[in-house]
């Protein structure tokens, strides 16, 4: 089952605001700034937009964005659930809409003041009436297990126990991300690399996670313009093909607390995404030239490497220790600095970096990168894409 319209849709424009801890303006304004910047980069008039796509935990309704950019006829709009887990899914929907002829120009966006306006990582606040979702959080929040970091930490501890990974192994992910961020002028942590010693000395957030295992909440917006590959050829940017795009939720799936599976050290939903991406694209792990792996918290980068076959089960720590995430390693990873180093725009900034890598315009360019993997939120129902250079 790989009916995905491989290479039929392309990313033709990317746009973003600055990344900060206090944007000083509304989330909606961030959204329209990023959307129009992406369209300007693509050379497409905003009035041509007929599709908009985002994902939940974004407060900007499609129609508000649409009326502000002066849109006229919106034929396709969708919003995918589960926050950052959906970062790749809007591209899947955009590619499907474009290839089916439902829409001509679809803009995917993410915009928020998750730092200045609310604290995204501060914990779960239940709605006034009980729902299946709030009932779920009732098994954790009354015990103080109430933040994304804490939900990840529980799985991370078990991963360490079963596979012999250490806090330093998690730290090596943070160090390489911050190294890449240090040479990315857009990054919040531009020119601020860290050492493994600093990682180890940073305060506990939730043991076994140190502060420097956690991304920082950010204000900012990113937008991605998708149209048909055919039209892309006549636009001003080098087209970046959407070679594969998939979503995944798997056995006994929960929102960050899939603690009831036999093995809680795997990301089975990401394994499902990996299987689909490889089947759609006809590619294998060996064909992937660089990766943007979702890194809201460093520990989940390890099982992602295993889900995609870059390392065997439990062996991601060795893959990382060998320096394979570095620019000269086997799999240059998070060349923009990741969410640990650039900004936490729930994966959409990672998609933009994937586009730059394929175009050859990353500030930490991987020479000859032709196939780039971009993954979305981990520990939640998730998604991913493979972006590719036209032949």
């Amino acid at each position, binding site marked *: 089952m790989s009916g995905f319209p491989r290479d039929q849709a392309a990313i033709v424009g990317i746009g973003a605001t600055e990344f900060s801890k206090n944007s000083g303006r509304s989330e909606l304004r961030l959204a329209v700034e990023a959307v129009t910047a992406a369209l300007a980069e693509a050379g497409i008039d905003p009035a041509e937009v007929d599709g908009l796509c985002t994902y939940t935990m974004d407060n900007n309704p499609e129609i508000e964005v649409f009326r502000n950019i002066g849109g006229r006829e919106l034929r396709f709009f969708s919003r995918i659930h589960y926050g950052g887990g959906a970062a790749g899914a809007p591209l899947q929907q955009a590619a499907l809409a474009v290839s089916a002829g439902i829409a001509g120009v679809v803009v995917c966006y993410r915009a928020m003041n998750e730092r200045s306006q609310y604290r995204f990582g501060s914990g779960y606040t239940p709605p006034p009436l009980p729902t*299946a979702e709030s*009932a779920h959080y009732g098994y954790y929040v009354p015990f103080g297990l*109430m933040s994304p970091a804490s939900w990840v930490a529980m799985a991370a501890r078990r991963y360490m126990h079963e596979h012999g990974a250490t806090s330093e192994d998690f730290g090596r992910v943070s160090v390489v991300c911050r190294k890449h961020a240090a040479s990315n002028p857009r990054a919040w942590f531009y020119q601020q690399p860290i050492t493994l010693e600093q990682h180890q000395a940073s305060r506990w957030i939730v043991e076994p996670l140190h502060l420097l295992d956690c991304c920082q909440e950010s204000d900012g917006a990113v937008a991605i313009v998708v149209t048909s590959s055919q039209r892309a050829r006549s636009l001003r940017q080098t087209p970046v093909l959407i070679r594969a795009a998939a979503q995944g939720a798997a056995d006994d799936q929960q929102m960050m607390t899939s603690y009831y599976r036999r093995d*809680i050290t795997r990301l089975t939903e990401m394994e499902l995404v990996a299987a689909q991406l490889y089947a759609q694209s006809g590619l294998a792990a060996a064909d992937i030239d660089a990766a943007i792996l979702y890194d809201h918290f460093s520990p989940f980068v390890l099982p992602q490497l295993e889900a995609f076959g870059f390392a065997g089960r439990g062996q991601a720590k060795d893959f990382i220790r060998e320096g394979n995430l570095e620019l000269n390693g086997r799999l240059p990873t998070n060349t923009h600095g990741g969410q640990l180093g650039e900004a936490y725009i729930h994966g959409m900034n990672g998609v933009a970096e994937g586009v730059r890598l394929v175009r050859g315009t990353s500030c930490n360019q991987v020479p000859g990168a032709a196939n780039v993997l971009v993954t979305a939120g981990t520990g939640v129902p998730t998604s991913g894409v493979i972006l590719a250079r036209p032949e």
Partner: protein
Amino acid sequence: MSDATDLVTRARAFVGKPAATPVAARDPVNLPAIRRWCDAMGDRNPVYQDAAAARAAGFDGIVAPPAMLDVWTMSPFRPGGRASTERMQVLELFDAAGFTGVVATNVEQDYDRYLHEGDRVHCTAIVEDVSEEKRTALGVGHFVTLRYEFTDDAGDAVGRMLFRVLKFRPPLAQAATAQAAAVPKSIPHPRPAVTHDNAFFWEGIKARRLLVQCCAACGRLRHPPGPMCPQCRSLEWRTVEASGRGTIHSFVVMHQPRLPALHYPLTILLVELAEGVRVVANLLEAGAQQLQIGRAVALDFVEVEPGYLLPAFRLA
């Protein structure tokens, strides 16, 4: 010179000088004011209100709670705002520059002696320090440190206070955040959401029983509760009471963020019950250093608020 540098320079011209006109307390130290303050603070120490108890403690009569030091000279509430003599020009400089938000960040008091009924307190506030521009969670701002000197009618020092505020530029969106930070309030222990599907679980906890859902058709146990058996799709179910024995499958020690009702660092366990299902709950009475995956634990219950029970585990 940039506007920001200019602002700091102008504000720092006040350093070492009085921040406002020195004030004398409107009322001498008195029992009614002490009573209201103790009621509000929940302070039941009798030496503040009962002369006999105060004498038994070695005082001549009742004494004021030391922490009331700055209460006596506080400006009265004026619906139209503070009087010109009460306003602090150094803070008004920041207001005028758009740093209209204010939040108290530090208070340190030193006491030279107890205050007795009839003492009249005098206060002078002096500007101690003005910070460079800082980026904080509330927004961009400057910390302003004030030193309050308190004296009696004779001019002798009775205490002093260091008081630091953050004057910040509040984006519109931050009004709620700023207010929440300035006015801490007690937050009840989080409640679970109770639905038709999980009411049995929380009712069981109230009765000190950890109930596990069991499919009435195929016998498979499941947790967290749900309406349908994922194995045989039956909607019929019963419950079995957990033995309370289990092992630690994983655990975390929570430092941030914190719930007001809990004690930190807080240990949270993922326990694999002897019956085969897993549950999340807190660990009672043990330091994290004793913990390891695989250790045996035993079920208990903890009353986190009157009438509100939660399951918890002890090392077995």
